[in-house]
């Protein structure tokens, strides 16, 4: 059920500002791909163009093709909501719905899909919370607000919410940057487990994290402020970190720049 993601010459704008330029890459199913690069090089922008969340921002638009198993999600007949259901997303800051209980948060996506049957929702909630390694911590307080959890628990709750609708691709934008080291490890373990079922793409600022969790790494960069971000190098993670082909990549991962 995990799917292949194939970006073909993807360019994205905020109004007239070109944030990323001509990105082409293929991401294989059931793999973990890390996006690294200096701040402002368009990692988030590119990630959000994979599930059409980029266009949510007023004035923002995307050009090019984004193929999910040979179907272009930017094709005019494609239903945006179906795209976003297929490609789940976890944000930088944990964002459970503050007015909802833990349980309601997890099943929110299913309810949006019209699932009403309590037994189905109960099963999905338990399965997703187990999948996100948080079931034992919350099983006795499912009716309590999600906002009452710790940051790391909230983030795992958000992952549970994202996987409850059984997406085929899971996008994560710096999911650990607001978390403490223990929570970060918990999420990294989780990513390792989820990889069996999903195509995972994770943006990270932390190069050790990229090295730990990913199979493949994409390095993005910009020439200077105001220029669009470009894909510099995309290869196996070990190759990127041990023997990068590009000088810019090497400079970045050795800390000479960025």
């Amino acid at each position, binding site marked *: 059920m995990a799917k292949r993601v194939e970006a073909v010459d993807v360019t994205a704008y905020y109004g007239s500002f070109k944030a990323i330029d001509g990105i082409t890459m293929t991401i294989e199913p059931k793999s973990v791909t890390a996006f690294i690069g200096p701040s402002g090089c368009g990692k988030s922008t590119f990630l959000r163009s994979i*599930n059409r*969340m980029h266009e*949510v921002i*007023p004035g923002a638009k995307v050009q090019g093709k984004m193929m999910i198993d040979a179907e272009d999600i930017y094709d005019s007949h494609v239903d945006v*909501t*179906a*795209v*976003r*259901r297929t490609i*789940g*997303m976890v*944000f930088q*800051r*944990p*964002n*459970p*719905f*503050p*007015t*909802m*209980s833990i349980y309601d948060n997890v099943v*929110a*996506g299913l309810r*949006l*899909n019209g699932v009403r049957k309590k037994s189905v929702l109960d099963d999905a909630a338990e399965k997703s919370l187990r999948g996100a390694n948080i079931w034992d911590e919350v099983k006795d307080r499912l009716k309590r*607000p*999600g*906002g009452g959890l*710790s*940051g790391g628990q*909230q983030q795992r709750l*958000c992952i549970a*919410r*994202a996987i409850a*609708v059984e997406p085929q691709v899971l996008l994560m934008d710096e999911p650990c940057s607001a978390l403490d080291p223990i929570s970060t490890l918990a999420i990294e373990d989780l990513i390792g487990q989820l990889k069996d079922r999903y195509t995972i793409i994770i943006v990270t600022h932390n*190069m*050790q994290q990229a090295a730990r969790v990913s199979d493949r790494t994409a390095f993005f960069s910009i020439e200077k402020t105001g220029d669009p971000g470009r894909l510099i190098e995309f290869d196996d993670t070990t190759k990127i970190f041990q023997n990068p082909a590009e000088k810019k990549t090497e400079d970045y*991962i*050795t*800390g*000479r720049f960025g």
Partner: protein
Amino acid sequence: MTESPTRSAADQPGADDRSASADKYGRQASTGFTLSGALRENEAHDHPSGPDLGGGGGGLPPRRRGFEPLFRFFTTGAGILVLVIIVAIAAFLITKAIPALSANKANFFTYEQWFPNDPSNPRFGIAALAYGTLLTAVIALILAVPVALGIALFLSHYAPRRIATGLGFVIDLLAAVPSVIFGLWGRDYLAGPIGDLSAWLHQYVGWLPLFGSGGPYGNSILLGSVVLAIMVLPITTALCRDVFVQTPTQNEEAALALGATRWEMIRTAVLPYGKPGVIAAVMLGLGRALGETIALAMTLGATFGVSVDIIHTGGNSIAANIANAFGEANETGRGALIASGLVLFAITLIVNVTARAIIYRRREFAGGTS
């Protein structure tokens, strides 16, 4: 990530920093010296300087003086003054109301008529007035709140920015129209169409007691309610819009990323987030509707009596009755009106306390994410 030229180069300024901080310590030591000097001086002048220091004769440095005590005096004074004024008003109202209430030959809470000016046999009751007050306000809200929510959501989440700004401006203008203008307009222009609507309602849904009357249709509860609805619309709309606009983007994006349509996103993220604000806006609208005086004095029929029918000529409210009857009232009549004013005050108080209770109960779930 390991030792790089940049890193070791960065060590140089670090060393500079350390020497700079050593310098800082030196300066801090001298500051400490003057401080202890000041303390010793303080001890020496302990008794004479005691009162000036506000009674604190310990080893602490002297309190900074100047604007602070003056400001504290001013704010405390203002706070006390407000309390005194409120108590004075309440005392005044109660002392004026008590003689009229004891002279009243009818039951104040159940009697529906208003004859307080009869010198030998004053009779008056709040029943019809309180009923009319609540009924017009509730109908006004039933009419206004859905429209206000619709406009507010349109402004916050559907309209292009230019249109939203323009329309928002028009709505703010509407809020600035004086109520007497609404009263005039309702009486001279809206009465006709509402009369036609009343006839239509009676013809097609006349089996509902609300629309049971066959006429005449003129100044009625329905007309007053419609005018009130238009009057509470701007404030309710503006407040709801402000609340909806503040929905955190991360909540909206959370819903959209789960595949929500725009309306589903509003239902899962915007409305739950805005709920306490919407309740507050509705209660503010209710407060305005309950207290509205002149527009209702001009559009209600100024008759007494409790009736389920809202289209027949008639209807009255506490505030409208005070405006209509105060001019010709004698001593007891004025006392009676003041008593009715106290009831209105109690009603608005209950409404406000209820609103606060509702908002407070939801607080646990209303907090943002950490």
